[in-house]
């Protein structure tokens, strides 16, 4: 009994030292990742926050502390409001188009044995091409008088449409280009998801009576693609929200502000007008939206789609 009691007491300092060493080692291993996180994300974020509370202008010598004035200005600014609405409108077109379109193509391509890789390459090409270069091609294709798209419309007896210079069509046209660019990548993700569904589930379903394509899709494919769809949905939302390059190259926010989007306005404020403090505040608003999208994934939908 005495032995049993004295033993832990005798070992205690050794055990404590060991625990200490373990803790230090653990922290040591975590340190490089933490330093990287600090330098590349946390520190810039802190600088951004600090800038957004000042009226700093790029190249300026001094600046004043303005508190939340930049945020107040942003929320009251009709241009920013309009660009926010435009961005959300763009997201509202691109997300359903880019996700459902990709899902449909993936389901169609999935069962092709010989031509599958060909389709994969074709649909993936827009992802690999630089959008800035492709924008020139789009501009030519959609040109009111020279473009083949309008050529076809005219041949069919319709009036030509000035896709990019008409305020009512410009944003929708950019959204279609956005879908065109996203659909290949989403398709690959869906194809990976489809490949992961075991074949014998379809066979079991076939024996159990899921004989039509609709039944198979609703019973097996769609529910088992849940996690993939979730991921595709969130990444597509974030990518769509970050719309910038087509606007910058093709419309510059026009015609009459119909394609002004949030990121383009941040770029104008920060790098054209050098209102760095104001641009920082806008960036924070932008980040808040992205955060909401991610939070929706993590907390609301994640539990529902995983099995």
């Amino acid at each position, binding site marked *: 009994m005495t032995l049993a009691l004295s033993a832990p007491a005798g070992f205690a300092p050794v055990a404590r030292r060991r625990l200490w060493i373990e803790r230090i080692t653990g922290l040591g291993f975590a340190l490089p990742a933490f330093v990287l996180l600090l330098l590349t994300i946390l520190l810039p974020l802190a600088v951004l926050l600090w800038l957004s509370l000042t009226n700093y202008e790029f190249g300026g010598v001094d600046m004043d502390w303005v508190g939340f004035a930049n945020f107040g200005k942003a929320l009251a600014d009709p241009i920013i409001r309009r660009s926010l609405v435009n961005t959300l409108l763009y997201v509202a077109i691109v997300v359903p188009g880019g996700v459902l379109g990709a899902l449909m193509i993936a389901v169609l391509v999935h069962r092709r044995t010989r031509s599958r890789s060909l389709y994969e390459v074709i649909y993936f090409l827009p992802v690999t091409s630089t959008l800035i270069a492709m924008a020139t091609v789009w501009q030519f294709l959609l040109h009111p008088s020279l473009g083949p798209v309008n050529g076809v419309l005219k041949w069919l007896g319709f009036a030509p449409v000035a896709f990019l210079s008409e305020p009512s069509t410009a944003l929708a046209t950019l959204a279609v280009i956005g879908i065109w660019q996203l659909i290949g990548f989403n398709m690959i993700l869906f194809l990976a998801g489809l490949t992961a569904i*075991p074949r*014998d*589930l379809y*066979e*079991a*379903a*076939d*024996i*159990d*009576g*899921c*004989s*039509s394509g*609709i*039944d198979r899709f*609703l*019973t*097996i494919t769609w*529910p*088992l693609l*849940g996690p993939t769809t979730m991921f595709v949905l969130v990444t597509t939302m974030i990518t769509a929200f970050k719309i910038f390059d087509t606007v910058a190259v093709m419309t510059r926010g026009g015609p009459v502000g119909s394609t002004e989007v949030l990121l383009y306005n941040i770029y104008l404020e920060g790098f054209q007008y050098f209102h760095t403090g104001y641009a920082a505040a806008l960036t924070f608003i932008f980040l808040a939206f992205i955060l909401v999208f991610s939070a929706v994934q993590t907390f609301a939908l994640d539990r529902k789609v995983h*099995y």
Partner: protein
Amino acid sequence: MATVALSSIAKSFGSTKVLGGVDLDIADGEFLTLVGPSGCGKSTLIRIIAGLEHQDGGGVAIGGSRVDHLRPHERRVAMVFQSYALYPHMSVRANIALPLTMSRLSLRQRLPLLRLLSRRRREVMRGIEADVGAVAMQLQLDHLLDRKPAQLSGGQRQRVALGRAMVRQPAVFLMDEPLSNLDAKLRVHMRTELAELHKRLGATFIYVTHDQVEAMTMSDRVAMMDSGSILQLGTPSRLYEKPASLKVAQFIGSPAINLLPATVAAAGRLELFGRPMALAVPLAQGQAVTLGIRSEALALVHGEPGAPGRAWFTARLRRKENLGSEYILHFDLAGRDAQGVTMRTTPAIAAGLSEAAEVTLGFDEAACHIFGTDGGRVEPRGENGATGSVVPLRA
């Protein structure tokens, strides 16, 4: 309840011939096992019966009528897969209920949102619920109905797969290696459960396995397959006691049958290791044959060997394997390093032998199986005038 009749089923995948004209008649309520090494075509055959694969030639009839043009779910068959193929996103309840919801509800009543419009749906769902409950009770799954497959153990998943098959009361149960993902102890237990289930349901069972023990213990009849054809069809004891070919003899039985080379001497008399035996076969002199002797047919010979009707040879004990109730003794044959024989014996006899002991082993010549050079079974000529025969090997 139904019979299953297969007539000259042929199937190739590309240039690989998997099945070459298989004929098989399965009686109503029979437990038939397709057994064979991997790649012998047994799984393809059961998938053709299920309708998951289409044969290139021949036909399948279930309950007397041809089903070749029918989709799997119209054939009144249910299948249990090796992987169980449970729907991972559905609860146990929904898994078992799926065959019923598919057959009892119209597409409109199954579609999301639209189904809310149907009044009859409620009623049907209640009926399904009751049926699922009854099956779950039989399989002791009633407390697991709300779990997802991922939360179940292997044996429980196996039972859910069985439940999903049972719930539609199919005429034929198809089972594709259903026990091979279970651990050894559970497998032995499930063998009994499956055999009892078969007795209780009275349905026709077609069971695919590569495990000869499963084939021997559960089946009414066993069809041993190899390279796309049935080598032998018969009761388990028939396959064990009168294997039609060398391949069947080697596959059925554990430990594997002992094979010894022998030659045909004058007048068809066999010679084993140069010593004449009493056995005579209707084969030409000089031909080589293979003798198959089950491990329990071997016995130690004390004193002078060569009693009439008993062949013998010498061997050296390599290893003793203790199975508790019995011993498996592994011997090397004198002068033949590569070849060994195994003998099944009692612990008392095994205790009397030390490692590397030189012994004489003997066997009753009537208990050995004779196979010709083509692997076909050869019946010996009897002493009282029976002529003996060479059983033609079915290709």
